[in-house]
């Protein structure tokens, strides 16, 4: 069964450094998403992406965050200058259309030191 893949599984970064999290969505999916889950909290929406542009973003997704689809298969989340509070599990998801279920990857655990 097709799946969303994310790399790396764990990223450790010094505060203030840039980090790029990578995702390969399911190949025929057109909508892409990033979510995060801080330890002990609920899964929170960050951003959705369709037709090479952001379609919705949350308050969390400030100017430090950006997303890109650099080629036909990858979807990336960049955090420009990481803060301690960015430590979380980051999940990528994709869906065929907006009203279809979103399918999630296994996440990247981001640890900011």
């Amino acid at each position, binding site marked *: 069964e097709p799946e969303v893949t994310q790399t790396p599984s764990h990223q450790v970064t010094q505060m203030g450094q840039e980090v790029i999290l990578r995702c390969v969505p399911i190949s025929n999916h057109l909508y892409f998403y990033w979510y995060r889950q801080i330890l002990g909290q*609920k899964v929170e929406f960050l951003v959705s992406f*369709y037709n090479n542009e952001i*379609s919705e973003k*949350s308050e969390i997704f400030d100017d430090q965050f950006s997303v890109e689809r650099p080629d036909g298969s990858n979807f990336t989340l960049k955090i420009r200058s990481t803060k301690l509070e960015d430590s979380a599990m980051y999940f990528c998801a994709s869906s065929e259309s907006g*009203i279809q*279920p*979103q399918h999630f990857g296994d996440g990247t655990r981001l640890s900011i030191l």
Partner: protein
Amino acid sequence: DQQVKQNSPSLSVQEGRISILNCDYTNSMFDYFLWYKKYPAEGPTFLISISSIKDKNEDGRFTVFLNKSAKHLSLHIVPSQPGDSAVYFCAASDPSNSGYALNFGKGTSLLVTP
């Protein structure tokens, strides 16, 4: 702002019995609801969904019920199996948001005992 609430952090059920997981929501604009299952160190796995035009959707051992007037949905698992032990998340989507963001509850940890 908790728009999706799962008020039971945990639930323990014997194998073979019914598991009922509950979810309440506050946003009357939500019209698409999903249940996800999550094992440790894995991402959420889609289980079943329901749109607001229905009040029930069934897929094998899993049935989701939606009560729009009460803003409540539930997931029934019958019969429960030890492999069902996981954290279950309820999620909802507001169609007025063009990005189809999912709002998640905090999850209910289900333990199915042999």
